[in-house]
Structure formats: structure tokens, C-alpha cells
């Protein structure tokens, strides 16, 4: 019997996705574990592995199709002795088949283990599709929201954020009617304030046709990543009481050290200023553990490792791949990892576990000539460092003489719920010490 290959759910909340690219053609033989297609979700492009063996009998959903529902049949595998004639008519019904050009991967596809556990053993699906009834998002991850399981499921289906709802059930529990009454985009805020959308955005987020005639602008639909960025940063800016701290740091020693390191390094290793800043930030976090913290409703989580998120601008948004445990990594290792992550971020090839789990962020706009800026905190992280351009400035030295030094201004934005001004200042002092005395990083 021909085996249906269905659209996998790559994240617990995924309902549909874009079938970006086929890596096999009709007639190709596939083996278990082979990457057969790429699927785009809100944050990344994921690879689809074959579970069964066989010959690709028919591709039901062409590459570039958007809005392919999870579990829809995307292709049919033939087992030995079967021919394409055994395939019954196509059963997949893609929402809209816009044959948009699939993004070309610049790196060859790598067989990556799916972050989700294969399940659905009973079914005939040839893909590792998670059990539809066991959605982890229904299990109160993080701060507890009181909501009935049915309310959670309906909210997930409709894309409504439970946090934005007021519960009318016993003890303020969110029940079905609360979710059903909340049209996406018309949810009531939990406590007073301006009305919010399910995304946590302030309403109304529309352009009035009388003021901005529709033919005077081009409306580009929100991509998944843009939506996520909008939601997370709005929540962060509104919910996190944040404050900035500025400091100027002399870079001359660091630049000298970098030149010496690169001169001594093998040919293919080239350490960037940013790599050094990642390392310095990580070491400063270990020196000032009070700053490596996340606010939670249950208490402050002090992280034991410095996982440095590095903001990478990509088309359609922003993503922050993480250098995990950067305090223990050598410069060459950080440099190499960063190059790989940044390249794959631009290709939307990052796996969720590569851009989640940071404890601190760095955003660097120095290459654009920005002198100083303050970034928005990347929750649940407690701080984010905004790095300006290194530039030659006139500096008054200890003797009172005006000298020329390479200086950069950095701004540390802190979550005041976990970090006070003094702690932030101490962290900046530690960070400056590492940057101005790079030898200290060797200790």
C-alpha cells in the first residue's frame, strides 16, 4: 500500500507551514533518515526526514506552497512492486498555492535530529509527527495561567494569547466562553489599560483609509518572524521596567591584542572585535553573577552559565542565535560558531534550540556608525548590551593632556526587577576591565 507522507508539526503550536523546497523528485528512491523537503515556520526553515523507505510516487504539494495544514498529505511513497498508478487522487488541499520562489539554501542541508520526539506510532504516517492530543503548550509552561484545557486548545487554534484574557470561571479561571468571546485582535487585557490584541499590541494598529489612502502604500503581510518579533518586543517594552546605563570604553588595547592574536592564529581563523566582546561579556557575567538573571513569578533565576544571544538582522526580522556557555569557550571556537550561526540565521536555518535559551544579549550597530543606542530587553534575559561604533576620540588622560584614543560607547539596558543600578554599573566595570585589559580574558 502506498505510504502517505504528511506535513509534520515542527512546533507545538504549528497549524500550517510553507513547503519551501523539495529535495527529492518523483521517482527518486528515499531511505529512512533522508532529508526530503524543507518546511518554513515562523522562525526557521526545518528539514523533513523520511521515516519509511520507498520510491516517491507522487508529490502532492508543490514547493513554495504556503498554508499547508499540519497532517495534510504532501507526498506519497511507493513500496516495492507498486507503481504511481496505485496512488489515489490527491487528498491534500493547500490553502493557497502561491508558487513563491523557495529560498535557496546557501549551506547544504544537514541531517538534523528533529527537536520533537517521534510519536504517532499507530498511524501510517511516514513522518515523525507529534501526537496531536499531547500539546506541550497546554501544560502551563512558565508562569501559571489558570485556564481550562479546552480554553487552551481553542486559544491555540485561534492564535489567541491567554495572557491577554480575563477569566470568568471559578477563581478567575479562563474558560471556553472567555476564549470564544475574544476575537483575535479584540481580547480584553488582564488588568485595565489599553485594549490589546492577542499579540499584545496596542489597538488600533490600522491605518485609517481617510488619512492614508491605500494606494499610497504597499501592504506587506506580516511574516511569522515579524509577528513574533513584534509580539515579544512589545511585551518586553511594556512589561519590563527597563533602564539604560552608558559607559565609554577604550578599545586600543583590544585592537592591538586582536591583531596579535590573528597574526598568531592559523590562516582560517580570524577573530572579530565582536567575538572578543562576546567573550568579555560572558566573563563579566560570571564575575557578577547577580546580573546573569531572569525575573520569574516564582523567583529570580540566577543562571550558572553565560549564554550570549547575539542579535542578527535578517530579512523579515531579527533573530538572536546563542553562544552557549561562552565563558568556557576559546576565541577561535566562539568565532567559528558565530560565523556558522549568523550564516544560518540569514538563511533561516536555525533550529529552535539554537536561538532560545540565552541569558544575556549583545546587539552591535557599530558597523553602521551608530555611536550610542539602547536596545529592548530580550525576555526572559535580564540585560542587553548595545554596542556603538569604535571611533577615534579626543580623550583627556590622567595627566590632563588631550590624547587620541579609540573609544566605543556601550549602553546596558537592565530589567529593574532583577538588576539595580549598582549591579549594572558593577557589571559594566567588569566588562570594561576585560575590554581595556584583554589579557585578563586569558586568566
Amino acid at each position, binding site marked *: 500500500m502506498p505510504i502517505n507522507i504528511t506535513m509534520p508539526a515542527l512546533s507545538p503550536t504549528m497549524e500550517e507551514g510553507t513547503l519551501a523546497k523539495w529535495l527529492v523528485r518523483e521517482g527518486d528512491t528515499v531511505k529512512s533518515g533522508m532529508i526530503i523537503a524543507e518546511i518554513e515556520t515562523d522562525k526557521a526553515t526545518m528539514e523533513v526526514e523520511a521515516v519509511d523507505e520507498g520510491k516517491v510516487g507522487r508529490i502532492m504539494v508543490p514547493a513554495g506552497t504556503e498554508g499547508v495544514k499540519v497532517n495534510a498529505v504532501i507526498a506519497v511513497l511507493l513500496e516495492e512492486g507498486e507503481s504511481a498508478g496505485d496512488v489515489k487522487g490527491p487528498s491534500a488541499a493547500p490553502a493557497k498555492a502561491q508558487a513563491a520562489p523557495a529560498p535557496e539554501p546557501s549551506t547544504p542541508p544537514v541531517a538534523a535530529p528533529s527537536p520533537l520526539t517521534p510519536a504517532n506510532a*499507530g498511524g501510517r504516517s511516514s513522518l515523525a509527527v507529534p501526537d496531536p*492530543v499531547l500539546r506541550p503548550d*497546554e501544560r502551563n509552561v512558565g508562569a501559571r495561567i489558570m485556564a*481550562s*484545557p*479546552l480554553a487552551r*486548545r481553542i486559544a491555540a*487554534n485561534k492564535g489567541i494569547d491567554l495572557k491577554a484574557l480575563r477569566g470568568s470561571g471559578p477563581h478567575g479561571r479562563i474558560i471556553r466562553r472567555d476564549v470564544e468571546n475574544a476575537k483575535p485582535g479584540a481580547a480584553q487585557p488582564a488588568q485595565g489599560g489599553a485594549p490589546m490584541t492577542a499579540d499584545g499590541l496596542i489597538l488600533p494598529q490600522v491605518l485609517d483609509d481617510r488619512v492614508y489612502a491605500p494606494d499610497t502604500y504597499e501592504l506587506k503581510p506580516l511574516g511569522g518572524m515579524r509577528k513574533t518579533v513584534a509580539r515579544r518586543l512589545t511585551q518586553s517594552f511594556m512589561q519590563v521596567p527597563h533602564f539604560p546605563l552608558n559607559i565609554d570604553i577604550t578599545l586600543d588595547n583590544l585592537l592591538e591584542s586582536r591583531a596579535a592574536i590573528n597574526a598568531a592564529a592559523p590562516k582560517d581563523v580570524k577573530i572579530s572585535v565582536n567575538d572578543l566582546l562576546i567573550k568579555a561579556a560572558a566573563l563579566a557575567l560570571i564575575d557578577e553573577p547577580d546580573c546573569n538573571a531572569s525575573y520569574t513569578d516564582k523567583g529570580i533565576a540566577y543562571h550558572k552559565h553565560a549564554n550570549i544571544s547575539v542579535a542578527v538582522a535578517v530579512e523579515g526580522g531579527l533573530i538572536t542565535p546563542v553562544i552557549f556557555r561562552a565563558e568556557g569557550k576559546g576565541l577561535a571556537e566562539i568565532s567559528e560558531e558565530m560565523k556558522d550561526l549568523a550564516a544560518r540565521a540569514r538563511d533561516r536555518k536555525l533550529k529552535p534550540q539554537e536561538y532560545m535559551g540565552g541569558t544575556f544579549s549583545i546587539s552591535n550597530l557599530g558597523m553602521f556608525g551608530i555611536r550610542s543606542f539602547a536596545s529592548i530587553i530580550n525576555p526572559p534575559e535580564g540585560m542587553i548590551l548595545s554596542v556603538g561604533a569604535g571611533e577615534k576620540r579626543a580623550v583627556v588622560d590622567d595627566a590632563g593632556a588631550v590624547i587620541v584614543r579609540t573609544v566605543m560607547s556601550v549602553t546596558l539596558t537592565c530589567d529593574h526587577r532583577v538588576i539595580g543600578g549598582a549591579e549594572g554599573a558593577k557589571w559594566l566595570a567588569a566588562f570594561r576591565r576585560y575590554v581595556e585589559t584583554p589579557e585578563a580574558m586569558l586568566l
Partner: protein
Amino acid sequence: MSAPYDLIVIGSGPGGYVAAIRASQLGMKTAIVERESLGGICLNWGCIPTKALLRSAEVLHLARHAKSFGLKIENPSFDLEAVVKRSRGVASQLSGGVRFLMKKNRIDVIEGTARLEKGAPAPKVFVKGRDGKDTPYTAKHVMLATGARARDIPQAGLVADGRLIWTYREAMTPDVMPKRLLVVGSGAIGIEFASFYNELGSEVTVVEVMDRILPVEDAEISALAEKDFRKQGFNILTGARVENVKAGRNVVTADITTKDGKKETREFDRAILAVGIVGNVENLGLEALGARIDKTHVVVDGFGKTGVPGLYAIGDLTGPPWLAHKASHEGVTCVEGIAGRNHAEPFDASNVPGCTYSRPQVASVGLTEAAARAKGHDIKVGRFPFIGNGKAIAMGEEQGLVKTIFDRKTGELLGAHMIGAEVTELIQGYVIARQGELTEADLIHTVFAHPTISETMHEAVLDAEGRALHI
């Protein structure tokens, strides 16, 4: 003029007396008016005494099948008078219990028949006692809980005479065992009496105008029930019409038109009319007050408000489902609404379980499969037969089925339908699941005790996912 009350409840059935207790708990000075016996139909002439009768029938059934359990009981038989006496004893014990509860909660019991007149802030209540004296009472709120009674259909010649043509009342206190019994209507009441009399040896004929018995149940359950009852010896005529039920000197005659259009006059020893009920709306003065009445039922909102200031109505009087637990819940809801309780929830009829205590028992909550489809749900259905359940087999009760209906998209338990031993006790599990808005995932994760028949409930959920274990 007596001291004004916060609340006067008219009718002391399971709706009225429970509402009165709740009102008292909330600090209201409360009185309850009853023209007959405390506890109303439920305790005295309905739910409870029939359960006593059916228990006798069940024990008799087991005794007759003692051999299959390896036991020896010679010629088990019964004493009708003693069976009825036990049933009456149970009823009076419970009625006494209600009297105690009224006293404990300092609720004044006013014996007599009530009538309402215009008044403010609520209608005035006049109660005519046994002595014929009319006493006026005033209250801030008046709640009607006068219930309902068996329906007659005179146009079709379906009128009880209390002698040979019975309603539930006479059927509950038989003086003789009818050899041939006609039961008109196959809802819960008709089927329960049919089950009782069949067990005790009557030749029972059930006539149902709809195309299946227990017509409010899921069609699959109706079919299984019919099959079982037929095996027990019931004559069942569905899609059939009964007219001109006439009492002669010793026999009842009835014109029965069967599904194929054949009409014949048949003879029975007794007939039970169980063709629905009508609300007790008469002689209360409702018309003058301007309360809206729709086919013998008072029209109310989710908190029992009639639209007449200070006047409320609950229970059978306000329409289906005609069930004691519905009345009790409505009574509490109404009182909490009056008291302005926070989180008072309007009554929601969609989560009222229904139980039929025949052998086999039938119980259900929520939508039938057909209703779920008609409402446009994309559904998944699970089934599990008792034959796959260890406890059921050990009990000698391997006939039964549990059926679950889920919304495929949301995982909501849209309906659950059960037939078999003890299902009336089991259905509550699904009712709680629905009230708590649990999904199939929660039920799957729930641990069910082994060995219990309740495991069939788990399996029926698993089966909806195609992963039942013991079948």
C-alpha cells in the same frame, strides 16, 4: 399579615427545597409552601420510590440467575405488597429527611396551596390551608417550583383514570400484578416501569411514536437497549401510535396503529401513560401577573427570572430536561442570582446528565452523535464494549457499551453515552470532564482504578484516538 420573608418558595420538590436551603445558607429569611408532601414528586412519587422498586426487580433478577454465579436459590419469587411497602418506606424516610433539613435551616414550612396576586416588590402569596383559610404572606422574592405532572392527550384518548389506566403514581403502588401491561411512551419513565413489570412477570408492550425507544438518547444506544429489552421479552412497537385507551370493567382496550399502518384494537389488563409531562402553571394567578407561559411552561432566563418583578421560576415548571437534578441546580442558581453572589453562573442545560434505571441502565450527557454532526462538528467517536472489561465480566455484566464523541479540532468531549451495569453512577465522570472543560488529552492522562467498570470510560476515550488497549 405575617412577617415579611426574603424568599418564599412555592413547592418543596428537589428544586424548591434545595433552593430554600441555599437561601437560608445565604442568610435569607425563607419559607416554603407545600400542598402535599415535603420532597415533591421526586421523593414521594418519582425518582426515589421507583429506584426502590427497580432495586427489588434487580435483586430478583440476580436471584433467578443465581446458578450462573454458582449459587443455589430455589424458586425465587416476590411479594408485591412487600415490594411496594419497601418503596413507600424509602419515600417516607426521605420526606422526613426533608422536614428535618427545613427545620435545621430554620425554613418555615407552610402547608397549603399557594396563589399569587400583584404586589411589590414581589407578588403577594396567599396560602389556602387544609382548613380552607387563606393566609397572605409577603416576601421580597417569590420562587415558583411547582413542578409538573403526567401529560394526558385527550384528543388521542390518552387519559388516565387512576384505576386501570395509570400514570406513574398508580404504577408505583400496584394492587395487583397486571398480566398484560401496555406502556405508552418509551422515555425514561415508561422504560423504567416496563423494566420493573417485565422482571416481575408482566407481558409488557411498549409503544413509541418515534422510530426508536429512548428517543433522546444516541441512536446506537437506543438500538442496543431495544435489542436487550426484546431479548428479555418486551414487545416493542416503534413508529406506532396508540389511541382510544379505554377502561372497561376489568380490561383496557387500545387502538394501536403499527409502523406499517395496520390498526388493531388490543386488550390489556393495565396501561401506563408516560407520554411526557405538563407544567403545573394553573391556579397560581400567573396570567394576571403577566408571566409568560409557553405550552404549560413558565419562560425564564438563566437565573430563573420571569420578567415579573420579584417572581422567579425553576425546575420542571420551566421546561425540559425534566429532571430533579436540573431543578435543584436551577434553584441554587436562581437563589445565588437573587443574593447577587459573585460568580453566580446562569443555568446551562447542555451539561445535565440523563439517567434511565432500567436493566440495562442507560446514561448520557451532551450531544448525541447525530446532534454533534448536525451542529457541524468535525467529530471523532470512541466506543468500548463491556466485554473488554474485567470487572464487568467478573460481575456477570458483560453487556454494555460506552461511546464518546469528541470535537476533532478542540478535543472537547461533546457527548458521552453509556448502556450497561452501573452506568448511571459512572456518567458523572464525563459530566465533570465537560464542566471542567477537559479535553481528550486530560482524560487520556487520567488514571482509572482497576478493576472497575469505569475503565471502559477510559478505553472509550482512547478508542476515539484509535488506541484502545483491551479490544
